[in-house]
């Protein structure tokens, strides 16, 4: 767990003192706390001591306070009017400013800040563990559905209602795939390292987009949006990390979210030499000229996009650009400066995302 301590803190199990953000540990104390018998005994006593101020054998102040039932020790301190100046000054020669004095009320404030941080951090860790467990179980059950579905599909090949069963099986497969995609999206945002963990394998961009289109169909239809896909020729496979499947999903999800009712989303796929070109064109909230360079930055949302919907964190295009960087894909975003429509005083114009993929 990362630490947030403003003052030097003694680590009970490790027998070491960590720097505080505001006051650091004098070299003398850093060396002595492990080897000097007097220092070792002092900290051993403090581990069991009642809360309050104490003096270390070399004149510094130590402060014991309780956090979550355990003793916490701020040490190497010069608390105004409390430390032994005569003993101490020789230990920090010419470094008085660095290891400055602090007042008792400030010490109490710092201790309270540390206690609060510790409790929140513990809560966060527990919550994170809880989320991790849920993710683990969701992925496990999702995999079981996939495996069972695969079995049904294989065993029903001689069934009279094979074509009907095949349709059901396809829908289950696509739903499971979509769930994996949503979970991968979360992992990519919160645990990016995981996406780089595997080696590249072959993917076909046409098949991925087709699957995403199928998954988004219902959502698009609820807004009367048509998704039209045109491929100029057969697409060859590309080598990419697993997160590549997220890329079309992020762009198409945005396109469906921001398109006004009854519009079209056009997807073009083409291959020239060793380069594949994918273009996704839709009508979206117009991005102002000064915004276009910021639109792929984390947390940034265009002015018109904010007006159009509250639903968004500004991470879709950012994540897409990260995936492109990871897979050496050239991604470009255009928004037509000329408005096409104005709905509820929000300006809409053509929005286009281009991908250039080297095969």
């Amino acid at each position, binding site marked *: 767990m990362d630490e947030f301590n403003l003052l030097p803190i003694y680590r009970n199990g490790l027998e070491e003192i960590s720097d505080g953000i505001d006051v650091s540990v004098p070299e003398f104390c850093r060396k002595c706390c492990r080897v000097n018998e007097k220092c070792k005994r002092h900290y051993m006593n403090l581990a069991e001591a009642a809360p309050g101020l104490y003096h270390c054998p070399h004149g510094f102040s130590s402060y014991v306070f309780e956090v979550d039932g355990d003793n916490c020790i701020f040490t190497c301190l010069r608390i105004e009017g409390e430390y032994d100046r005569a003993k101490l000054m020789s230990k920090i020669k010419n470094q008085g400013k660095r290891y400055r004095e602090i007042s008792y009320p400030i010490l109490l404030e710092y201790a309270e800040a540390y206690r609060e941080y510790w409790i929140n951090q513990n809560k966060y860790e527990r919550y994170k563990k809880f989320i991790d467990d849920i993710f683990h179980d969701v992925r496990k059950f999702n995999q079981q559905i996939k495996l069972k579905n695969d079995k049904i599909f294989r065993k029903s090949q001689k069934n009279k209602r094979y074509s009907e069963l095949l349709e059901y099986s396809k829908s289950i497969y696509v739903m499971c795939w979509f769930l994996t995609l949503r979970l991968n999206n979360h992992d990519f945002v919160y645990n990016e390292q995981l996406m780089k963990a595997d*080696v590249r394998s072959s993917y076909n961009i046409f098949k991925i987009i087709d699957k995403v289109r199928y998954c988004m169909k219902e959502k698009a239809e609820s807004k009367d949006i048509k998704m039209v896909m045109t491929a100029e020729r057969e697409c060859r496979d590309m080598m990419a990390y697993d997160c590549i499947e997220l890329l079309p999903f992020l762009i198409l999800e945005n396109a469906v979210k921001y398109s006004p009712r009854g519009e079209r989303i056009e997807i073009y796929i083409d291959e020239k030499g060793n380069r594949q070109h994918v273009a996704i064109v839709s009508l979206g909230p117009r991005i102002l000229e000064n915004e276009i360079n910021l639109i792929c930055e984390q947390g940034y949302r265009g002015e018109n996009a904010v007006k159009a919907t509250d639903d968004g964190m500004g991470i879709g295009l950012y994540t897409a650009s990260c995936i492109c960087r990871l897979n050496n894909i050239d991604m470009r975003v255009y928004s037509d400066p000329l408005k096409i429509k104005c709905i509820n005083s929000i300006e809409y114009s053509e929005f286009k995302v281009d991908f250039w993929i080297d095969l």
Partner: protein
Amino acid sequence: MRWLFKREGQRKRYASAIELLEKSNIASLRKRTKILVVDDEDEEIYEVLKERQYDAYYKNDITYSIEAEPFDIILMDIRGVARRRKSNMEGFAIACEIKSKYPLKRVCCYSGSVHQEISEQLADRKIDAFWVKDIDIDKMCEKIDNLIMEYADVEKQWEVLREEMVKNKISEEDIRRIREAYFEGFKKGNFAELNIVTMETIKNASTMLNIVNSILTLIKVLAV
């Protein structure tokens, strides 16, 4: 090591190993590569692999890396595996240990969720592959096939051996000689020259053992 190179009759059987590699298709390689699935919760991945004609085996837990010795490819769930070791890295720790002890084997992990510490080490490529637990079945099989192909690839095996030799401070000149003898051995089906060169150059028993293992692996997978 001498016994391996001295059996004249067997040499002919190994003679066209490289040729076989070029011709070998994944369906036959699947049947010749022993895959161990370690998963504490269910045998379903193992069952899928069996259905798809992989030579798969199942264990619900593993404590020592030596338990993986008879297998060529190891697929390890991270959570709930190697519990007796009481490491928070669970199955990942033992996967890394297997990879370090048997560098020629292909080791991969899968999990439903992975904490930061493991993700960082995964990115450092301490094992050969990682995938999320709910990966598509076809994709998983494709990845396993890739691992099998790598395992049965003379060049890839050589890369691992070379890395071992560099780690053991064998000189570039000696590595070049061993390489020549290694590939010639496969081409001619005669490892006598490799035997001489390794005896002259390699003093480290584990490196020598890895060379023998590499040859045995390729013979077993490609030529039997």
